[in-house]
């Protein structure tokens, strides 16, 4: 898990009422901003808070939703601000045109950074964004003919409609309200769900059919564009921009703002921004000792991280949720309604594997394995520990690239496709160590499984929801669809994972040691479930240690040892094959470890 929130609030389906309430509230705030007579100091603070908040909401998206770090938000903010400053002052362009140009600029920069480095993630991303930040600052300072260097750009005009400080402030607040609404609604949209899935578990997201890379780049570009938008507004608000306003230190301030307020909600962004602008102002009375108030500020940051892990807003909303939380009645779903792809197809082979090999340096984990999975069958892949089963499965689902060999899924050569494309091509899988999206409900997990191109269910939310609930009902958890996945037992989490794979309407279901960690009752239930899936005609490729399960359900068994196939055929003949007996004798017992 890369998110810092342990459990962001589930998104409530209250859009129409929520929208109305939001619009009314926003209108009141905008009206207040437009009409209340503020003095210059308050106007400046509010202007700063409003424009910064827009940029901080970008971090809500990239960090809160998608779990990626960005330490260059001040650079994006600065690019937006300079686009407006230089465009209006030096080139005499229209304000709105400059805002547009600024957005194009930052989205391009953000997408470039994202495309080139997001696959590295974590600390590398942190470093690349710091580098970008430093380079932007240096260019602003040193490319004097273009940027005016350290003098900055002064006398930046405001757009015609909003020349007064008050009018412009009201405009900024309006923009903030619109951006806030979009960020608030984003988690419930397909894109937002994909981001959350990527944040919770990249690997599971990719095999659920999500293009992880594109999702991250999109999140990063959204973050950059909100940074640029905030900066563009800032330039108009303060009429002066200079490089030191967009330094690395400011990027840190942006990051602290979003974490302080809480990454889970745009309200957190506003709260965090407001506080970090106001706290140093309030603490001005401590100024007689130089450094004292910034020291207190630093201490406050540590204390908040220690005592309010979800930020101030996260802490507050947890409190409010403790009261008045109504149980959501689950929509009854019909297990029988789940349609699975049956035994109709071009030919009898769902999967053909030819000469598959995967070497890690000198280690030949899989070494020239071939087998064929017949349509409508339950096919088992077994072998002692270290025989290469899981590696084979990871190569099959595209997590590893094969050293050699070919895989044909239902007539399509998938050998070189990334995981999400294989899912689109008809592959579904589960993991040995369960990989669910832990911040979401069961049904949201399964919706993500259903939500990929190529699924005949379509894109409509109600259809996806119905399919997800049907899949959950099919595995026997229909009545608990709206609970958080973390509240389920281990065995039930496994069932949710299977439901997630089924919802995607696969042609071939890959199960990686589904019985691992289950007790005997759960194993019986699992066996029943697999038989019901098989009865619907879906082809299954299962890997397991559990011989009882395997011999109960499998019609065909392939045995691996030391990365090579040593037997292949029907269960009775394979399990009596002398090589198989030798491979298992003296090795560990067949029970799961």
């Amino acid at each position, binding site marked *: 898990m890369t998110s810092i929130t342990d459990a962001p609030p589930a998104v409530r389906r209250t859009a129409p009422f929520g929208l109305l309430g939001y619009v009314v509230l926003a209108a009141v705030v905008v009206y207040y901003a437009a009409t209340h007579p503020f*003095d*210059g100091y308050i106007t400046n603070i509010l202007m700063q808070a409003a424009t910064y908040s827009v940029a901080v909401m970008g971090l809500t998206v990239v960090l809160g939703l998608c779990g990626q770090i960005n330490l260059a938000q001040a650079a994006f903010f600065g690019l937006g601000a300079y686009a407006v400053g230089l465009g209006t002052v030096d080139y005499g362009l229209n304000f709105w045109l400059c805002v547009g140009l600024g957005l194009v600029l930052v989205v391009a920069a953000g997408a470039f950074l994202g495309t080139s480095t997001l696959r590295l993630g974590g600390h590398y991303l942190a470093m690349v964004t710091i580098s970008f930040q430093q380079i932007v600052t240096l260019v602003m300072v040193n490319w004097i003919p273009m940027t005016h260097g350290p*003098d900055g750009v002064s006398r930046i005009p405001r757009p015609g409609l909003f020349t007064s400080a008050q009018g412009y402030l009201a405009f900024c607040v309006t923009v903030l309200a619109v951006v806030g609404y979009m960020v608030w609604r984003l988690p419930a949209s397909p894109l937002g769900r994909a981001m959350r899935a990527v944040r919770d578990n990249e690997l599971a997201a990719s095999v659920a059919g999500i293009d992880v890379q594109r999702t991250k780049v999109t999140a990063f570009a959204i973050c950059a564009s909100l940074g640029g938008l905030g900066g563009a507004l800032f330039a108009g608000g303060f009429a*002066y921009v*200079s490089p030191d306003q967009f330094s690395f230190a400011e990027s840190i301030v942006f990051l602290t703002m979003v974490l302080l307020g809480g990454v889970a909600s745009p309200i957190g962004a506003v709260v965090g921004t407001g506080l970090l602008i106001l706290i*140093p102002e309030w*603490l001005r009375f401590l100024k007689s000792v*130089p450094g004292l108030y910034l020291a207190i500020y630093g201490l406050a940051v540590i*204390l908040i991280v220690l005592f309010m892990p979800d930020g101030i807003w996260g*802490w507050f909303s947890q409190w409010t949720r403790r009261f008045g939380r109504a149980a959501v009645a689950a929509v009854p779903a019909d297990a029988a309604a789940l349609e699975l792809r049956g035994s109709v197809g071009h030919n009898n082979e769902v999967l053909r594997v030819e000469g598959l090999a995967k070497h890690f340096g000198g280690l030949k984990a899989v070494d020239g394995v071939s087998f064929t999975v017949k349509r409508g069958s339950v096919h088992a892949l077994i072998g002692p520990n270290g025989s290469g089963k899981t590696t084979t499965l990871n190569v099959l689902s595209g997590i590893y690239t094969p050293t050699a060999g070919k895989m044909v899924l239902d007539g399509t050569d998938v050998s070189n496709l990334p995981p999400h494309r294989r899912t689109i091509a008809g592959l579904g899988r589960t993991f040995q160590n369960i990989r669910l999206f832990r911040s979401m409900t069961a049904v949201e997990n399964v919706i993500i499984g259903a939500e990929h191109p190529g699924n005949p269910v379509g894109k409509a939310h109600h259809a996806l929801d119905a399919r997800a609930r049907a899949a959950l009902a099919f595995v026997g958890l229909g009545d608990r669809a709206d609970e958080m996945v973390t509240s389920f037992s281990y065995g039930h989490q496994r069932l949710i994972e299977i439901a997630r794979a089924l919802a995607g309407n696969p042609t071939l279901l890959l199960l990686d040691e589904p019985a691992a960690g289950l007790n005997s009752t759960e194993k019986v239930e699992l066996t029943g479930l697999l038989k019901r899936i098989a009865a619907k005609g879906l082809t299954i490729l299962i890997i397991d240690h559990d011989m009882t399960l395997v011999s109960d359900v499998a019609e065909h068994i392939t045995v691996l040892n030391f990365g090579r196939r040593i037997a292949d055929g029907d269960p009775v003949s394979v399990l009596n094959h002398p090589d198989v007996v030798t491979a298992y004798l003296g090795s560990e017992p067949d029970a799961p470890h």
Partner: protein
Amino acid sequence: MQVTRRVFTSGLAIGLAAPAVLRGASAQGGTIKIGQVVPITGPAAEAGKYAMAGAKLALEKVNKAGGVLGKQLEIVTEDDQTTNPGAVLAFSKLATNADISAFIGSIRSTQMHAMAPDILKNAKPTMFGGTDPTLTKLGNPWLFRCRPNDGYSGRVIATFGLDELKLKKWGIVHSTDAFGTNGAKALAEALEKAGVKPAIIQGYSNQSQDFTPVVLALKQAGIDVLGSYFTFENDLGIFARQLRQLGVTAPWVGSPSIVNVTALKLAGPALYNTYGVADYAEDSSPEAKAYADAYRAVMKVDPDNQSSWCYDAVSLLATAINKAGKTDPQAVREAMLSIKGYKGAEGEYNFDQNGDGLHGYNIVQNKSGKIAFAKHIEFKD
């Protein structure tokens, strides 16, 4: 744990409410107030301390002499955190206090640029020390500069080097911030006007840890005189030491930072025998000498330009308000413009229509760590 958390959060709530209570207590009439925007935190905090001390000395002097319009003078300070947004907030915070009649701005030019729109809106006289020449050409009638601008420092360095030292092969080293870039530009222009093209102009960014490449470039260019614009004393200290270590012995005429107290302490012998332009030089006039004695008595260190302009700014404001007979901003402005030949610690003030009060510089020399007055160069245009 639970208790700690509750205690912490309620403590936070009290902490957030307290300043609002405190703020109410200080609004009192009976004095004439001057607002001062000054760095109390951040990289320039040291300079801020000096600036406040200078302003306070003038305050005491004015109040001892009977105050302004029969009332005591008072200075209200706000921290600009050494950043531009900090300066804007600090100024706009002071500006909301209608009791404040006039302001002292920043010695940093970018901060003055950032505050300029608010100063114009606020429409009250604002004295400042930033030396970027463009500041007084913004068409902002409320800006009054209490130091000579960089246009003069560049000309003074050039004049001194060409006429007194008789050297022609110039190297220029400058910080790439606003101050350094504009200063170097002015110096290069002054040299070119005299028909001398600098052999090398080399910029560096602030807080560099090493100047070897810069020094080697100067050495290769074979310069016989060096002009410099350094913003931060630690950069100056590192550069000075490496310059001498790597064997560049050319005479050196630097911008004011070369003779300030911190630079002398950091660089030590590496700066011996260098020249500096100084808007403030202790031996340049009796007024400067008197200020130095007063400052030393309080601060126990030698005064420099970080404080002297604030001292003059407060004195000038007191003079102008007394002359105007009221605190009406327009009247004070006119009174300020009519001040002629006022002898301050920095020099003789004659405000022109742009708001520039001083039109010349002193040249001083570092003689084994002691600053000696060498020459005053004044321009009429």
